[in-house]
């Protein structure tokens, strides 16, 4: 008992030895050290990250999503199947291996009407030579991606409202709300969604929302060397995409599904689904 009492007294004495001034001084030092430590943590991480200069949305505070409505046009007559768009997408969005936010399909049609379709690795490494003995009378490439439908089955079936459409017309997935049930993946007729094997969350093309809200083009559009992919804002008067939408004859994928895609095709062949 005595020993315990003595110990208690020692502790109180030690506390009393540290005056108010000392306490404040030590406190300030500690605070400064902590600020420096915490401040440097993200910086150290940010330096090797090439995207550090591009803050993720909603980084652009001046951006008002009601001022925009985006549309995407794919010109199948121009696509050369180089696969640069697929590569750019994978790098920009860190798309897991074996999955695709965008991909390119190759169609080869013979004179007799036989169709050969392939998309090795989503066309990422471009395409090999045509099948030997297959007499190709016409051939073309069709890039594909999420169609950002305005009547989208994926948003409809999400049981927790994790899939939603922004006011500027982009279909996104709330990463913090998705439960990973996979219902949206089943509901998408274009197979443009997948379950990310690492995050276990439904993933798809976002039209690079973090870029477009900064006034940039999606990575795939920027990477395309032949201008087969066009991205624009139909609320801007002088937008080339708006002009094409107004004047050209366009098609959408699986129109019978009535999903109202915002992704339009020029020169789409009947063999494409």
């Amino acid at each position, binding site marked *: 008992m005595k020993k315990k009492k003595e110990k208690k007294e020692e502790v109180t004495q030690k506390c009393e030895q540290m005056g108010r001034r000392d306490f404040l001084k030590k406190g300030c030092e500690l605070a400064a050290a902590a600020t420096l430590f915490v401040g440097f943590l993200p910086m150290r991480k940010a330096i090797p990250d090439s995207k550090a200069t591009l803050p993720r949305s909603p980084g652009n505070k001046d951006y008002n999503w009601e001022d925009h409505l985006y549309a995407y046009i794919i010109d199948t007559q121009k696509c050369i199947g180089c696969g640069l768009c697929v590569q750019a997408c994978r790098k920009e969005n860190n798309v897991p291996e*074996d999955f695709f936010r965008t991909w390119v399909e190759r169609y080869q049609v013979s004179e007799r009407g036989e169709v050969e379709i392939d998309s090795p690795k989503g066309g990422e490494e471009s395409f090999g030579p045509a099948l030997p003995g297959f007499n190709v009378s016409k051939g073309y490439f069709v890039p594909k991606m999420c169609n950002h439908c305005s009547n989208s089955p994926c948003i409809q079936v999400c049981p927790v409202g994790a899939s939603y459409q922004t006011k500027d017309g982009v279909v996104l997935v709330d990463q913090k709300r998705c439960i990973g049930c996979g219902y949206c993946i089943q509901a998408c007729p274009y197979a443009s969604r997948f379950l990310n094997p690492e995050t276990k969350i439904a993933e798809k093309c976002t039209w690079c929302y973090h870029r477009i809200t900064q006034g940039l083009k999606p990575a795939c559009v920027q990477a395309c060397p032949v201008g087969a992919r066009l991205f624009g804002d139909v609320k801007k008067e002088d937008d080339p995409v708006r002009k094409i939408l107004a004047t050209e004859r366009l098609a959408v994928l699986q129109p019978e599904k009535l999903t109202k895609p915002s992704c339009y095709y020029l020169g789409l062949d009947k063999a494409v689904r």
Partner: protein
Amino acid sequence: MTEAAQFLFPNDLHIHWSLMIVMYPYITGFVAGAFVVSSLYHVFHIKQLAPLARFALLTSFAFLCVATLPLLNHLGHPERAMNIMITPHFSSAMAGFGIIFNFYFILVLLELWLIYRRDIIEMAKESRGFKRLLYKVLALGVYDVSPQALEKDHKIVTFLAAVGIPAACFLHGYVGFLFGALKANPWWSTPLMPVIFLFSAMVSGIALLIVLYQVAMKISGRPIDQPCISKMAQLLWLFMIITVSLELLEIITLAYEQSEVWEIIHPLLTHQLSFSFISIQMILGSLIPFILLMGMVLLNRYLHEKVRNTIAFVASTLLIIQVFAMRWNVVIGGQIFSKSLRGFRDYHPLFLEKEGVLAAILIFILPFTILFVLNCILPAFQPRHVRHD
């Protein structure tokens, strides 16, 4: 124009809804089917089912307890599962899960308690120690067993059993609707899907009860009630005819229409699913039990007790397998073709993976374990007071 051979959309290489999603409708099918059997006695007064009425409800409850397990095991983020109930997005059929499941769970629990109330009170009075405590807790502090109170119980039970029929239909019809209302998938997208699911649930529920009843009687050394088995076999035959007719009707329509989708459904049924669809679901699971049950129903008077029991047992076992094959063919069959409608992928669940065969077996064993424990606490086959109404 000749169609392209074997082209899959690049994201279609993986199957998202695994064996667990096969297990979910399989288990809820037993829930709905067994419940309706108990309601057939309570509401429609099919007297022959009296020996099974309590056991059917207990079975339904045991399977209901594990119905969510395969779903939880399948979810990418099971820790967010409650989002379905807290923030449901009602344009989705799946968002109805919380409401339908909880409503049904409460209903079954309530009916179970009211049916067993008198037994619970008497067992609480007769037993000592822990057992007494258990039954006292189960009695919920209500010890009124006056004829008026029992009459009231009976009325509420009848009402709950009646409300439970549409509830059970909803619980299982909704599962069918989840598949049937997806326009992206031609093998699922049909208004017949909920109806097929419902009737196959009835088949699986009745078949399971026939098997379990016979096993339970064998174990306890009691005689198997013959009018009950005959009636159950009759009902099983009826419901299996409706189920198989609907299943075939859907396929015949697709084939007859010669629509675009038949180009993928035809090879799906004759190649990819030839074993599970043609051999298991149609021949072993439908044709053979159909013949067996037809013989049993038509020649019922002339059959020896043992023959009757054996035929019912064998036909029921085959039908339990048939319903599993049907769930497999719907859930997996709908995913092994690509949405390009031009190619197939493969699915072979591994034994030890998270959503693999072992997990499915464990989830399937669990309700039987629960049923065994429940039956020890609330014996279904020794009614202390047989009601004649």
